[in-house]
C-alpha cells in the first residue's frame, strides 16, 4: 500500500463519523476502526522490505519552488511509530466505544481522534521536513480539540488551550529550525538532509537550528521546562489521554529527535542540551508523580518522566542509547496505554480518580486489578516485564556516561529517578487496589465488560510477552528502527537477563527504596507539601494572563478610538517621512524667478492669513467658523482667478455655497458652540503638529513653484490639440470631458454615490430609535416668525429663470469659455435650492417633477452611453467627435459628443446636490416642524377692516 494512502486513510476515516453522525457509537467505532486496521495492514505489508533495509518512498509535488513536497517514506523508524500509532489507535477506538456515554457527541470524538491519528501518521511517514511540519502542527490542533472535548469542563478548555499554546510555540520554533536546516542542506527532503551531517554541523547556524528544533521537540514531548501542559491535558476523556500520552502526541517529539539524530547528534551541544534536559525531566516528573493523588495525574507525570528518559537516551548520542530509547518507546506505549485505560476504567466504575477516595478495589475489580498491576510493575521496571529490560539498558547507559567531567552524576540521578518511578508505580497499585474495601466510593465499582477490558488486557499481554521474549516480540522492530536512526546495521541484543550487574543492583535497590517510600508516603507528602516550589501551571497561567492583559493594555491604549491620535500620528508620519525623503535626495537650484507681488495679491494674502488665523482662534463659535470658511473660500476662488484658473474659481465658489448650506442644515441640530475640552498641553502638541504640516506642505509647494519641469509636460499636447482634436478652446473643459473624460466619469459617479449614501443614511435615521429621538427633538434656538418672507419669495421667483439662463449659458459656453456641465449643474441646483429656501420644502418639492435619484442614474448612464457610443465606430470608450453645422440664416455652430457627456455631468450634479440637501432637510422636518403645505387648513390671519 502506498505510504500516501496509509497516511490518508485516517483522514478519510475522520470524515466518516461526521457523515454517519446519527448512526451511533457502533457505526462510528467500526468505521474508524476499519480505516485504522486497513492502514495498519497496509503498513505491515511493508515490513519485509523494511527489514531488508529498504526505504519505501513516494512523492507528490506540492510546492516545488520552495521545496515543499508531499513526500512519504517508510523506514524502520516510521514503521515502529506507525505500528504504535495505528495499533494502539485501534485499541483506543474499541475502548472509547465503551468508555463514552450516549450523551457525548461521539461523532465529534471519533472525527477528532482520526484527525489526530492521521496527523501522527503524517509526521512519521513524512519524507520532507516542511511537509512534516504540516502534520506536526496538525497534531497540536487536533489534540486541542480532543483535550477540549468536554467543553463544559473549565479544566478541559484550559488544558486544551495550554497544550495548544505550548506545542504551538514549539511548532513555530521548529518551522524556523527546519527552514534553516533545509537551507543549509539545500533541500527539505529528509533523505537529503540526513546526508548533510557535515554541512549542517559545520554551519554557524547549526546551534540556532538545533535549539529551534529542540524547542519544538521538547514542547511536544513535555520536556522540562515545558512539561506542565501534559498533566493539564488530562482533563480530556481517558481514551484521549491513553492515546496522546502513551503512544502518540508526546512521542512525536521523540520521533523527531530520532529522525534527525543522524545529522544533529554527536556534538557536545546536542549531548548537553538533550541528555541533560532528558535526565532532569526524568527526575522531576518521577518526583512529582509520587505526590499526586489523581490517577491520571500520576500517569501524566510518569509520562513526563519516562519521556525524559527516552530523551536522555537519545541525547547520549550513542548507538546503545538509541537502541534503548527505541525499545523503551515500545514498552512505554504498551504499559502506559494499559495504565491509562485502567485509570479510565476505575474512574468509569468508581466515579473518581482520586486516590484519597480509592483503595481496596482489588476485590471488587479483580481483572482490572491484575491488568493495572502488571502494567504498573512494568512501569516500575520490575522483572520480568518489558519495562524492566529497557530500564536496565537505560541504567547501563547512564552509569557509563560522564557529564562535564563528573563520571557518577548521570548514573546517580538516573538511579534516583528510577527509585521514584518504582515508588509512584507501587503507590498507583496500592492506592487504588490494595488496602481495605471502602464503602464511600461515589459509584458501585465492579469489573467492566469485555469492551473496556479487552484493550488494556491485550496490552498487558504484550507487556509480559515482550518482557519474556524481547527478541522474538520486539527485536525485529527495535533493530529496524534503531538502524534507521543510527544508519548502522547492527543487531541489538535484547535480553531479559544480563546477569548480576550494576544496573540490576541499582534496580533492586530502587525497588526496595521505592517500596519504603510508598510505605512512608505520608511524611514524605507532608515534606513535599511544605516545600516551596514553583508550580509550572501557575506560572504559565500567570504568564498568559499577564501577556493577555499586557496585550489588552497595549491594544486599548493604542486603539483607544481617539481620532486625533490616529490623525496626529498620520500627520507626523507624513511630515517626517516626506522630510526624510527630501533631505536624502538632491534639490537643484531654484530656476524660476519669483513673480512680483501686486497690491491685489497682497491684500488677498492678508485677508486669507487673517481669516485663517481667526478660524483657528474663533472656531468654537461654529456659525462664525462657517462664515470664515465662506471668506476663505471666497479668497481662494479669487486666487484662482488671479492665478489664471477661472474654471476653478467658478467651481470652487459654487461648491462652497452648497457646502455652507449643507453645514447650516446640519448645524441646525448640532451644538452651536464647541467647548474648550483640551488642555493647553494637548493644544500645544496639536499646534506643533499643525505647524509641522504647514511648514512642510508650504515648503514643498514653494520648492516646486520655484523650479521648472525637468521634462516637457504632457499638457503641451493638450494645449496643442484642445481645439484641433477636441473642438474646444477651454483646454480645462476639453481635458475634463475629453482628454480625461474617464476621470470625470468616475468623478460624477462619486458625486452620485455621495448623494445615494446621504439618502440611504437619512432613511435609516428616519426609522427606529433615531426617528423617535427626532420626533421629540427640542431645538436650542428661538425661532422667528415668517418662514417665507414675501420679498424673498418674489425675488427668488424672478431670479430662477435668470439663473437658469445663466446656467444654460455656462453649460453651452463651457467648451470654449470658463464653465461647463459641472458649474452649470451647480448653478441650476443653487437656483432650485433658492426656491426651497424661499418658498419652503413642500412647496418646491411639489413642483419638482423629476426625481433626483433618477437624475443621478440618468446622468451616469448618459455619460456612460455617450462613451459607449464610440464603440459603434470601432473606437474606444469615450472617443469624442464633433462637427460644425450651419442652419440657414444663422452662423455656424458646433455640436460635440463631449456636450452629451457634459450633459451627463450636469444631470448627475443637479441630482446629487438636490438629493443631498433634500435628504438633510427631511431630517429637519422629522423633528416635528410643520411644512407650509399641510398647514393650509389653518386659518389665514384675519385682516381687520379698520386698517383700510
Amino acid at each position, binding site marked *: 500500500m502506498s505510504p500516501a494512502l496509509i497516511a490518508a486513510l485516517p483522514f478519510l476515516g475522520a470524515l466518516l463519523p461526521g457523515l454517519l453522525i446519527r448512526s451511533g457509537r457502533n457505526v462510528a467505532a467500526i468505521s474508524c476502526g476499519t480505516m485504522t486496521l486497513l492502514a495498519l495492514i497496509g503498513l505491515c505489508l511493508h515490513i519485509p522490505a523494511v527489514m531488508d533495509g529498504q526505504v519505501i518512498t513516494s512523492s507528490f509535488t506540492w510546492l516545488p519552488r520552495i521545496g515543499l513536497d508531499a513526500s512519504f517514506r517508510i523506514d524502520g523508524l516510521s514503521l515502529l511509530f506507525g505500528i504504535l500509532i495505528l495499533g494502539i489507535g485501534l485499541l483506543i477506538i474499541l475502548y472509547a466505544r465503551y468508555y463514552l456515554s450516549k450523551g457525548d457527541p461521539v461523532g465529534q470524538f471519533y472525527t477528532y481522534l482520526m484527525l489526530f491519528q492521521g496527523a501522527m501518521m503524517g509526521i512519521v511517514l513524512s519524507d520532507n521536513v516542511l511537509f512534516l511540519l504540516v502534520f506536526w502542527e496538525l497534531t497540536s490542533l487536533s489534540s486541542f*480539540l480532543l483535550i477540549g472535548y468536554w467543553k*463544559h469542563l473549565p479544566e478541559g478548555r484550559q488544558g486544551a488551550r495550554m497544550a495548544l499554546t505550548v506545542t504551538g510555540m514549539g511548532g513555530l520554533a521548529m518551522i524556523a529550525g527546519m527552514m534553516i536546516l533545509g537551507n543549509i542542506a539545500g533541500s527539505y527532503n529528509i533523505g537529503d538532509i540526513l546526508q548533510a551531517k557535515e554541512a549542517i554541523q559545520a554551519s554557524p547556524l547549526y546551534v540556532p537550528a538545533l535549539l529551534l528544533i529542540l524547542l519544538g521537540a521538547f514542547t511536544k514531548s513535555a520536556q522540562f521546562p515545558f512539561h506542565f501542559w501534559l498533566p493539564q491535558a488530562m482533563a480530556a476523556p481517558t481514551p484521549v489521554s491513553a492515546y496522546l500520552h502513551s503512544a502518540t502526541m508526546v512521542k512525536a517529539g521523540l520521533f523527531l529527535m530520532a529522525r534527525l539524530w543522524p545529522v544533529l547528534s554527536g556534538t557536545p551541544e546536542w549531548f548537553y542540551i538533550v541528555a541533560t534536559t532528558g535526565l532532569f525531566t526524568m527526575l522531576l516528573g518521577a518526583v512529582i508523580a509520587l505526590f499526586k493523588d489523581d490517577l491520571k495525574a500520576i500517569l501524566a507525570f510518569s509520562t513526563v518522566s519516562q519521556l525524559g528518559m527516552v530523551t536522555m537516551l537519545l541525547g547520549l548520542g550513542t548507538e546503545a542509547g538509541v537502541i534503548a530509547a527505541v525499545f523503551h518507546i515500545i514498552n512505554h506505549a504498551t504499559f502506559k496505554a494499559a495504565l491509562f485505560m485502567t485509570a479510565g476504567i476505575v474512574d468509569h466504575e468508581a466515579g473518581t480518580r482520586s486516590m484519597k477516595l480509592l483503595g481496596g478495589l482489588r476485590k471488587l475489580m479483580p481483572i482490572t486489578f491484575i491488568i493495572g498491576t502488571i502494567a504498573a510493575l512494568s512501569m516500575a521496571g520490575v522483572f520480568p516485564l518489558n519495562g524492566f529490560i529497557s530500564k536496565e539498558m537505560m541504567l547501563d547507559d547512564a552509569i557509563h556516561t560522564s557529564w562535564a567531567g563528573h563520571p557518577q552524576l548521570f548514573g546517580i540521578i538516573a538511579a534516583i529517578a528510577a527509585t521514584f518511578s518504582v515508588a509512584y508505580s507501587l503507590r498507583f497499585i496500592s492506592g487504588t487496589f490494595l488496602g481495605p474495601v471502602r464503602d464511600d466510593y461515589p459509584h458501585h465499582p465492579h469489573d467492566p465488560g469485555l469492551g473496556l477490558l479487552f484493550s488494556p488486557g491485550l496490552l498487558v499481554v504484550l507487556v509480559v510477552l515482550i518482557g519474556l521474549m524481547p527478541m522474538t516480540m520486539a527485536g525485529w522492530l527495535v533493530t529496524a528502527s534503531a538502524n534507521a536512526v543510527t544508519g548502522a546495521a547492527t543487531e541489538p541484543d535484547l535480553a531479559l537477563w544480563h546477569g548480576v550487574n550494576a544496573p540490576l543492583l541499582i534496580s533492586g535497590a530502587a525497588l526496595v527504596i521505592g517500596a519504603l517510600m510508598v510505605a512512608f508516603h505520608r511524611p514524605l507528602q507532608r515534606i513535599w507539601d511544605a516545600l516551596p516550589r514553583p508550580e509550572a501551571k501557575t506560572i504559565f497561567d500567570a504568564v498568559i494572563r499577564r501577556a493577555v492583559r499586557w496585550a489588552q493594555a497595549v491594544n486599548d491604549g493604542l486603539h483607544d478610538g481617539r481620532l486625533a491620535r490616529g490623525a496626529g500620528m498620520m500627520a507626523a508620519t507624513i511630515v517626517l517621512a516626506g522630510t526624510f525623503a527630501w533631505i536624502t535626495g538632491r534639490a537643484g537650484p531654484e530656476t524660476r524667478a519669483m513673480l512680483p507681488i501686486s497690491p491685489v495679491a497682497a491684500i488677498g494674502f492678508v485677508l486669507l492669513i487673517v481669516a485663517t488665523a481667526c478660524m483657528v482662534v474663533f472656531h468654537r463659535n461654529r456659525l462664525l467658523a462657517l462664515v470664515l470658511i465662506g471668506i476663505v473660500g471666497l479668497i481662494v476662488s479669487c486666487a484662482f482667478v488671479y492665478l489664471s484658473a477661472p474654471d476653478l474659481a467658478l467651481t470652487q465658489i459654487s461648491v462652497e455655497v452648497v457646502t455652507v448650506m449643507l453645514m447650516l442644515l446640519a448645524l441646525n441640530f448640532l451644538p452651536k458652540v464647541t467647548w474648550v475640552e483640551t488642555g493647553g498641553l494637548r493644544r500645544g502638541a496639536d499646534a506643533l503638529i499643525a505647524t509641522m504640516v504647514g511648514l512642510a506642505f508650504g515648503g514643498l509647494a514653494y520648492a516646486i513653484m520655484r523650479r521648472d519641469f525637468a521634462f516637457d509636460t504632457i499638457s503641451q499636447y493638450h494645449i496643442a490639440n484642445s481645439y484641433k482634436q477636441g473642438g474646444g478652446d477651454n483646454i480645462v473643459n476639453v481635458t475634463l470631458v475629453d482628454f480625461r473624460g474617464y476621470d470625470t466619469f468616475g468623478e460624477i459617479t462619486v458625486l452620485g454615490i455621495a448623494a445615494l449614501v446621504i439618502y440611504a443614511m437619512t432613511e435609516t435615521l428616519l426609522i427606529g430609535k433615531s426617528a423617535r429621538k427626532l420626533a421629540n427633538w427640542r431645538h436650542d434656538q428661538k425661532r422667528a416668525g415668517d418662514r417665507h418672507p414675501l420679498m424673498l419669495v418674489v425675488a427668488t421667483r424672478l431670479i430662477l429663470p435668470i439663473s437658469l439662463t445663466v446656467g444654460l449659458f455656462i453649460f453651452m459656453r463651457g467648451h470654449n469659455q470658463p464653465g461647463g456641465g459641472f458649474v452649470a449643474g451647480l448653478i441650476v441646483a443653487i437656483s432650485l435650492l433658492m426656491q426651497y429656501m424661499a418658498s419652503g420644502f413642500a412647496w418646491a418639492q411639489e413642483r419638482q417633477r423629476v426625481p433626483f435619484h433618477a437624475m443621478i*442614474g440618468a446622468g451616469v448612464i448618459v455619460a456612460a452611453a455617450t462613451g459607449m457610443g464610440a464603440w459603434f465606430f470601432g473606437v474606444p470608450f469615450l472617443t469624442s467627435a464633433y462637427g460644425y453645422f450651419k442652419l440657414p440664416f444663422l452662423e455656424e455652430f458646433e455640436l460635440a459628443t463631449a456636450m452629451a457627456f457634459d450633459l451627463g455631468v450636469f444631470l448627475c450634479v443637479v441630482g446629487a446636490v438636490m438629493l443631498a440637501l433634500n435628504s438633510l432637510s427631511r431630517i429637519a422636518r422629522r423633528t416635528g416642524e410643520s411644512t407650509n403645505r399641510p398647514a393650509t387648513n389653518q386659518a389665514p390671519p384675519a385682516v381687520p377692516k379698520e386698517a383700510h
Partner: protein
Amino acid sequence: MNHFIIAPVLLPAIIGGLIILWMRHDLLLQRVFSTVGSVLLLGAALYLAFHASTGEVFVYRLGNWPAPFGIVLMLDRLAGMMLVLTAFLGLVVQLYAIGSGWDRKGWHFHALWQFQMMGVMGAFLTGDAFNLFVFFEVLLIASYGLMIHGGGPLRLRAGVQYVVINLIGSTLFLAALGTLYAVTGTLNMADMAIKVAALPLSDTAVLRTGAVLLMLVFAIKAALVPLHFWLPSTYANAPGPVAALFAIMSKVGVYSIIRFYTLVFPGDSAVETLVSDMLLPAALITLIVGQVGVLGGRHLGRVAAMSAIASIGTLVIAVSMFTPESISAALYYTIHSTLTGAALFLIADMIAARRGGDLWLTLRPKIQNSGLIAAMFFAAAIAAAGLPPMSGFIGKLLVLDATRLDPWWVGIWATILITSLFAIVGFGRAGSTLFWLPFQLQRIEQQAAAEGRPAPQSPIPPKLEPDEHIQDIGDAVSPTLTFAATGTLLAGLVALTVFAGPALRMTDSIADQLFSPHPYVESVLVNQEGARP
C-alpha cells in the same frame, strides 16, 4: 478583447445606475440584477485574467487619445488576478448579504455594492496615476455608504472617523500626485517610469518626496502602522458582509504599492530603496500590533480586524523585499488573507446574528448552529494564525522563504513566528469563549433542571432584543445561503492550499512580469496604432 477591458468598470456602473434609476423600491429585482451583475463580472474577470495569463499586456486607450496624453487602462497578469479575486469575493459576500438579510437593513445596498465593485475594478485596471486617485475615491465613497449601512450610534461614529481619515488620505494622495506631476510632467504610469529613470539628479528630492508621499497614501489604505488607526473600529462596526468585502480594500493599497514601486519607482531609480527601507520596519510593527490585538481582543469583530492588520503586516514584509520571489509570496498571501479575512468577518456576523449582535468575548448562552459555526471558525482561525493545513501556513512559509536572504532575516523570522503564537493564543481564547464556554452554562442549567432547582441566572443576561441596526438571525432570508457563502470562502482557502503549486506558479509568472516592465511600457507608449495623432 478590444473593448472588453473596460467591462469590469462599466458593468457595475451601469447596473448600479439602473438600480437607482428603476429599481429603487423593489428589493427582489435589485437582488436579481445585482447578483446577475456580479456573476457576469466574475465571468468578465475570468475572461480577462485568462487572456492576461498569456503574458501579453493589453492597453485600452480611452477616448482613443495616445498615451501618455489620455488615460489608459492596463491589463496584465497582476491586474487579471486582482480582478478575479475581487469579483469572486464580491459575488460570494454579496450572496451572504442577501442570505443574511443585511441588504434590507437600509437603502441602496446593492447599488452601493455595484459601485464599490466599479471602484475596485477601476483601480486595478488603470494605468494612470490620477485616474487611480479617482477610482480610489469611487471605491471609498461607496465603502462609506456600505460601512454605515443600517446605522446605529457606534457604526455612525466609526463611520465618521473612517471618512475623516480617508479624507486626509485623499488629500495626501493629491499632494503626492501634484508633486510627482510637478517633477515628471506626466500622469501616465508607464511614462512616469521612463521620466523617473531619466530624471536629472538635481530633481531627486522632489521625486523622492513624491514617491514617499504616494507610498504613505497606499500605506493608509493598507492600514500599515502607524497609519492604521482607522481600521479597528471601522471593521469591527461595519456590517459583517461589508467588513468581509473590505478585505479586498486594504489589498488595493498593497496592490498599488506593488504596482508603483515595481513599475515607476524600482529600486534602481532615484528613489533607491527608500520605500522598501521604510516599509519593512513598518510592516514588522504592523504585524506585531495586529497580533497583539488578536491576543488582547475582547470582541470578536476587533479580533478579526486586528488579524486583518496582522495579515497586512506579513504581506508588506514580503512586498518590502521587492524581489520576484517575495512579490510572488506576497501575491499568494494576498489571495489567502483576502479570503481568510472575509471568512472571519462573515463568521463573526453569523455569530453576532445569533447573539443579539453581541460579539464580546464573554460568557453567553450557546448559539444556534454552534457546532457548524465553530467548525468554520476553527478553520478560519487556523488560516488566520497561519497554521497548517490551511493556506496561511504556506503563505507564511513563502514569506519566510522570501526573506531568508535579507540582512534582517533573523528579526523578520522571529517577528513572524513569535507573533504567530500571539494569534494562536488569541484565537484559541476567542474560540474557547465563544463555543466551549456556553456548554458550561448549559450543563449547569441541565443539572439544575434535572434536580428540579431553578436554573441559575447566567452571569450576564443575553441581549436578544433586536435593534434596527443589529443583524439578527430572525432577519436572515436564508441561513443556508450564509453558510454556503462562508463555506465557499473556506473552500477557496482549501483549494489555495491544495493547489498551492499551480497558484504559486501563477504568482511567480505575475512577479516575473512585474520585474520586467519593459513590455508593459512598450505596449503603452510605443505600440499606438489606431490612436489619434
